[in-house]
């Protein structure tokens, strides 16, 4: 899925330069989102990607609980949750939590482990949390180095954390998630219950990302029952609804620089689920989708089996973004419009991207999430 993560390594490449450190020190964080430096860092990635990291392939397969944990042999990965919730009054609320891992160098056999004076810089972790509610969008970003315990992930018990943000396995197989912007500001605490087994995208979990066969390992929990509390604007709200959870890892960082990324995950009213993405250039993007029936049947859709086109664009403070899409899957009789509610949904972190809840209308009704990169100016 989802383009922002492909871009991320570009930002990380610059983390190692002292200039960047100084920029961050003096608070000029925004200066780091210049796309020119991103492009230049992408240029060299093809070479680095071959150095010591494993490449994903359909033969890898996906196995639980192992693959809920980290994959240090691969360069990048993420744990990613989106939720379409409603408050007790029925007001819709969108919610996101994502944690990324980026290996700077492959793990070595003689890793010293955590030592009380050791500050390794082998991996960088980044965590994002956002809430979209009542036309407002709040976002918070955390960064940390791996290898000292400040951040990390384990498969058993399932636990992903950075500072005091964490997603962990609680009693009865439920997950618990808490994140936010610190005391006095907004934060959320959720209980998450997977309702269906995982869905393996693409070929046995190998999801192609280009025509020449590059891709990532990708699986999802497409149906999560969620309830909990969200504190925002000084009020604590009880919320409930459904969510979508992605796990994805790879070492290949492909032609992402060539254009935007558009990704969406939809919960349709009849219980069907759809994940669709397109990446690359506007005139000939690479497209792929997964259709999941309410009964658990899964079908990978190639570019000629569905269409995904922008219908309408919205002018925002940071660029024009498509805010309405038409998705058609003729074989499933799906012809829907996917619409972003009013508002500004930029996740304004070190690398800004668009992340918004969406409403589905047309042949089917429903909700979902839309992520777009490459539109930020």
């Amino acid at each position: 899925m989802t383009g922002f993560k492909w871009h991320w390594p570009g930002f990380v490449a610059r983390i190692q330069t002292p200039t960047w450190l100084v920029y961050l020190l003096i608070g000029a964080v925004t200066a780091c989102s210049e796309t020119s430096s991103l492009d230049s860092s992408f240029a060299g990635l093809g070479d680095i990607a071959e150095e010591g990291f494993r490449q994903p392939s359909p033969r890898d397969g996906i196995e639980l609980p192992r693959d809920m944990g980290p994959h240090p042999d691969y360069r990048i990965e993420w744990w990613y949750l989106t939720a379409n919730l409603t408050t007790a009054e029925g007001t819709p609320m969108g919610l996101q939590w994502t944690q990324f891992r980026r290996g700077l160098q492959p793990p070595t056999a003689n890793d010293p482990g955590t030592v009380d004076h050791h500050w390794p810089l082998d991996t960088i972790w980044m965590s994002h949390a956002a809430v979209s509610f009542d036309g407002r969008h709040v976002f918070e970003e955390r960064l940390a180095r791996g290898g000292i315990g400040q951040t990390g992930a384990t498969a058993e018990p399932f636990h992903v954390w950075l500072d005091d943000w964490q997603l962990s396995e609680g009693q009865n197989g439920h997950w618990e998630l808490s994140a936010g912007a610190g005391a006095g500001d907004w934060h959320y605490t959720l209980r998450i219950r997977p309702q269906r087994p995982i869905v393996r995208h693409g070929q046995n979990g190998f999801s192609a990302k280009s025509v020449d066969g590059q891709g990532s390992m990708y699986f999802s929990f497409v149906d999560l029952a969620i309830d909990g509390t969200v504190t925002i604007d000084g009020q604590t709200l009880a919320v409930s609804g459904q969510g979508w959870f992605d796990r994805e890892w790879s070492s290949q960082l492909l032609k992402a620089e060539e254009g935007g990324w558009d990704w969406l995950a939809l919960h349709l009213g009849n219980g069907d689920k759809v994940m669709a993405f397109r990446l690359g250039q506007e005139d000939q993007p690479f497209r792929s989708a997964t259709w999941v029936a309410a009964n658990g049947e899964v079908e990978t859709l190639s570019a000629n089996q569905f269409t995904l086109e922008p219908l309408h664009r919205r002018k925002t403070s940071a660029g024009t973004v498509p805010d309405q899409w038409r998705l058609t899957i003729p074989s499933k009789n799906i012809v829907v419009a996917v619409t972003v509610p009013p508002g500004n949904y930029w996740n304004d972190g070190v690398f800004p991207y668009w992340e918004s809840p969406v409403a589905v209308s047309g042949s089917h009704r429903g909700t979902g999430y839309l992520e777009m990169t490459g539109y930020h100016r």
Partner: protein
Amino acid sequence: MTLSGALLSHYRRHPLQFLALLLILLIATALWSGVWSLSQQARASFSASDAALAQRHVVLRNDGVPVGVSDFVRLRRLGVCVTPQLVVERPAPQGRLIGIDAFSLACFAAQSAPNARAHPGVFVDIGEAEAIAGTRWPTRLTLFIDQTTSGLPSDYRIEQQPGTVATEQLADSFLLNLDALCALVLLISALLVRSVFVLGMTQREASLVLLQRHGVTAQRIRWHLVVEITLFALLGGGLGLVLGRVLARGFAAGFDQVLSGLFSVSLYTQTASVLSWLAPLLMLVIVMIWAVADRLFEHQPSRHKPAQMTAAWLTLATGVGVVLLLPSLTGQFAGIALVLAGYGWLTTLNLPLLLERLARRSASPLLSWSWSEVSAMVRQLALPLAALQFAAATVIAVHALVATFESTFYQWLDQRLQGDVYVQAPPALERQTARQRLASLASVSALHSVLRGRAQSRFGSLDVMAIESASPLLRRWEFLSTAVPGDTGVADASAGTPTDGDTVWRAVAAGQVLINEQLSRRHGLAAGNAITLTLGTTTMTATIAAVYADYGRPAGEVVIDQALWPENWPYQSSSFAVRLRSGGVESFQQQLAQAWQTSDVKVRDNEAIRTLAVRIFDQTFALTRAISTMTLLLAGVALLLMALTLFASRSWYYQLLQVWGLSATQVRGWLIRHGLLLTGAIALIALPLGVFLTWVLVARINPLAFGWSLPMATYPGFWLMIVALSLAVGLVLAVLLAPQIALSPASIRRSTEPHHPSGTGREKKAG
């Protein structure tokens, strides 16, 4: 020929005047804008790091164990906003390396993040710093905390970053110093420009009248002259600004060292904006126009001597009155300006009168001519001479201030840096136990324990320092004033001898207290008064035994004997000053770590601190001295240029002496005598002004600005130097003028015919 052409043709006939005006403007602007640019940069650097310095708080473990990676991780996992900094002390030339973790900085409010500019050193990732340090160099890990975060576990505490002395006041004093110098250079430039311009106007009076007769209105001429002086200011000033930048860049390295050493602030060069160029230039143009305004708009300067004399005396008296009576900084500066103006005015009015009286009394015609010749020179060179006088007085005052501050500061350093090393007591160990173990070390010859806390009083909260008044390490303290019989304090040359100090310390041991000068001045407390303090729940009233100097501290402080420290009152810090018997600091540190059973022993080598402080102050003062000396040089050069220009109208008289039969060597001798007399007299007259300025600086401005005064001291040795320097200017003047009076036999013949040198009063009357 156009009007502009006609007006400017004056400079074609007097190219030297054109060059003199331009050169004075150029040098003055360079000096002034250079200093101004530095002080602007310093100000920006200060304000940039102010917030960071004020907000630097660190997390410490209550058990005294140094913080490590696990502490950082634990606190971050609890949601506490902390960020690590690993300082690697590498020896020169590599220098200090600072490792930071950029990832954990985001939670700091932008202005309170530990600021790169606030710490001199090279920044790298903390992992890289650790790898570079390895086991080769000592490292120090600090966890900075955003003070606004809550939820710190009870086994940690927050402390103000140690070593952040309250430097704002020192910084203010430093900048004030620079600003005052800027203003002075500007004033002197204005005087010099005025003198050159007034000279030109006098010379051009005839041609201006001629222009008016041809129908050019006075209004138009005036307008052209304003344009002319503006063009001069722009041309000379523009070039001067460029030179000023070069000058500032030249000073910047030393200046940066001063700032970083003294205030932990790095000078960062601002990009030169259009405004930063335009502002000084505009200011220069305004000052120039102001300097010549009266000559432009009032055709004839007032010739009414008695009225001028009264006005000059009134100006001087008002200035002195303001300085004595107005307790505000602005008032002091205004007063100084008035005193300078009045004094300079009186000098230029009275010096010629005095010389003329001498001329009248001289029996010998040659001597009589000589006095009146110098008198004429003084009249013509009044303004550059006043500028030289101001510059000399300022140099004298700055020197006295610097020299006094230097010696006072060193004395104060000696009294504060007692013993050889200074050790912070371990928080985990009971204080008496720590003291006993420290005292039992073989390498310790004497020690002295210091407790610090904050007491309440009717003057607000005060710092309290509790000492062991019997300690031999306190014998070097000196006092500004004492109330103890038989002890006359520092004003007495014998102050500081053991007997005197002992008396005060005995009084402290008996329950009296000491207060710092700031507290004394701010609340009018003197030795012998009583002060009531509340230490925790205990309230006590004690007699003030003495007042001591305490430079750089903004707050009031009280020194008490440790016997007065209430049993149940917690201290903020506990430390020991230690005199070592033998062995180095390192072996002492090892022994102490063993005795105190902690690796976290913070030992400060007092000699190293003293050396550093002395070096830093030397640099600071070197800069101040350089600027004031350059001002003096500027005034000297300007005087030379002016004299060269003006002498054209006087050389005829010297040539006449040769016609009368004096040899060329004899005439040169007279010329040298006149030059020496002129500048020597100015230097001598500048001395009282210099002493007065010194007094205003140390006794009026310093206490008003910073709460502490300096003892008034004069340095006659330096006066001699200034007089010698002025005499040297006079000598150079005579040597440069000598070619103008050399005569060929033919010209001697010609000179006996009637002659009307240009630019004299006679010509004006004729016009």
